[in-house]
């Protein structure tokens, strides 16, 4: 084994707290600067050019703010943003309602609730890409299990509808998989919220003869609300960046009905190779996420202070 020379060891060990603090934090900062910040500035630089990554030898022209101008006036981009917003809205709505409902029921503490909670949590730990890929099989019109079950309960012939191939159904196909996968996430945070409500508040309400209905609306829901908000914000950010599941389930199709922002970005950047243009779009998305992240961290701190 290698031994540190004694004098050096003494020097290192005797470091002041201030030096230790910087020594400990610097490597992380250096890594983030190299892998996150430096590329970010590179992207900002590229966003003012017409650079194409597949033609690295071509002359690069400075186009000023043209890329930004074109993105903000491009109807296709706005359609993609609209698609993303729809996706975010419906997944969050469903996941919050179902997730809170489940948490509320689990909080009844029936026998075996811990075991079943763990079972429910499984889908959210899995790889959205790998599991999303398998959902393509479940959604097969004739042979897929999903179509079979729907037809079993409704009598609609299983080959009469294509979840992934139809313009009306494809967005819902993705929303269903996302909801299946992430409802447990919302449920888990809501459960923490419900469990954070001290019993004495309910005792007081009981003494005041508040009805269970009243207790729900004036104690349970308001006190769990910061937690629900936390879950909503986090899911909002995650689904705003949604890429893997959509890429595998529909690839943005049919046509561009499920083309969320990340899919548009991938098509522009890595299929059409409009690097400058897509960098500008990436920066716009950064700014949007950064704004959301700001709100998110504030919400986190509020929850923490409780």
């Amino acid at each position, binding site marked *: 084994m290698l031994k540190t020379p004694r004098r050096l060891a003494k020097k290192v060990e005797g470091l002041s707290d201030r030096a230790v603090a910087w020594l400990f934090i610097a490597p992380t900062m250096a890594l*983030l600067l190299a892998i996150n910040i430096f590329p970010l500035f590179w992207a900002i630089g590229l966003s003012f050019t017409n650079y194409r990554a597949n033609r690295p030898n071509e002359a690069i022209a400075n186009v000023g703010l043209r890329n930004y101008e074109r993105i903000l006036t491009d109807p296709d981009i706005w359609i993609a943003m609209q698609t993303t917003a729809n996706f975010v809205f419906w997944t969050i709505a469903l996941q919050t309602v179902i997730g809170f409902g489940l948490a509320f029921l689990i909080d009844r503490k*029936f026998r075996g609730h811990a075991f079943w909670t763990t079972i429910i949590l499984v889908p959210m*730990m899995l790889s959205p890409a790998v599991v999303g890929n398998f959902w393509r099989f479940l959604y097969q019109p004739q042979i897929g299990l999903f179509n079979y079950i729907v037809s079993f309960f409704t009598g609609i012939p299983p080959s009469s509808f294509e979840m992934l191939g139809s313009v009306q159904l494809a967005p819902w196909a993705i929303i269903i998989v996302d909801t299946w996968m992430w409802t447990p996430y919302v449920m888990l945070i809501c459960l923490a919220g419900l469990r954070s409500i001290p019993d004495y508040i309910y005792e007081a309400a009981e003494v005041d003869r508040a009805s269970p209905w009243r207790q729900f609306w004036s104690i349970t829901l308001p006190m769990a609300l910061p937690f629900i908000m936390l879950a909503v914000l986090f899911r909002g950010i995650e689904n705003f960046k949604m890429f893997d599941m959509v890429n595998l389930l529909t690839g943005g199709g049919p046509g561009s009905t499920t083309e969320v922002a990340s899919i548009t970005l991938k098509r522009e950047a890595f299929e059409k190779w409009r690097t400058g243009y897509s960098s500008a779009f990436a920066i716009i998305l950064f700014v949007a996420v950064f704004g959301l992240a700001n709100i998110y961290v504030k919400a986190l701190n509020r929850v923490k202070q409780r």
Partner: protein
Amino acid sequence: MSLTTAHSVIEPTRTSKRIAGAIVVAYALISMVPLFWIFATSFKTPPDSISYPPKVIFQPSLEGYCNLFTTRTRQTREYVDALGPATTLCDEITRRRNMVIAGPSNYWPRFINSLVIAFGSTFLAVSLGTLAAYGFSRFKVPLADDLLFFILSTRMMPPIAVAIPIYLMYRELGLSDSALGMILLYTAVNVSLAVWLLKGFIDEIPREYEEAAMIDGYTRLRAFWKVVLPQATTGIAATAIFCLIFAWNEYAFAVILTSGSAQTSPPFIPTIIGEGGLDWPAVASGTTIFLVPILVFTILLRKQLLRGITFGAVRK
């Protein structure tokens, strides 16, 4: 939903518990159906996997697993019959379909890439994260809140947006499609989670422990090594598992930045294709093998899950 029996100190009534339990169990079972179906399909033959109505009871077969690990070529019946006796089970199964095994598939190399990249990046992220978390937890760092916010915000960036400059940078540095490049990238993404989670865990270790050690003549670094680290083992282990799961599951960066020698399993599994369309039992086998480690980790981690998914904000 039984809103009428809202939470109260008076124990929920027996009936309300039963109804709640029944709904939750029903949800849990329904949500397990897709996973059950992956597992079941992995043991079907290709014809069984696409039969209508879907088969719940079937003769189990290892054909999916054989197909997953091999590449095969179609031959004439005469050619197959003229071969010597089959040496392995997979040989036999393949020959029944008038095919012979041509060689191993790419599944294992991709799986091993996933292991190397996940463990490598986890090790780095947790090491860096532990140091930084200790720094933020114990010392007055100027602008600490801003730095912590900056660290967290790096994880919120849309991966495809980050991938554009990283793609160009790696091309210049010769890190395209390399395990090292992926390890560095995943380390950068995971270090933010590691710092936030570990800061929470280290905050919970009383300062008095180190202070007592330092009064006994330990230097700050020795106190960190001998007193704080042993106390933080559970937190470090939980953080490591979260980092591992992220790196294991990650798809967006992997699909853009790797194509061949450093490709991981998530972009590879969707490309498993058999003759005449997708070979679903092989896809299901690949998926099953890929998911099993995560299932084990989820069970190990169940007490820490909440903390992990909220970056340490919610502790209980």
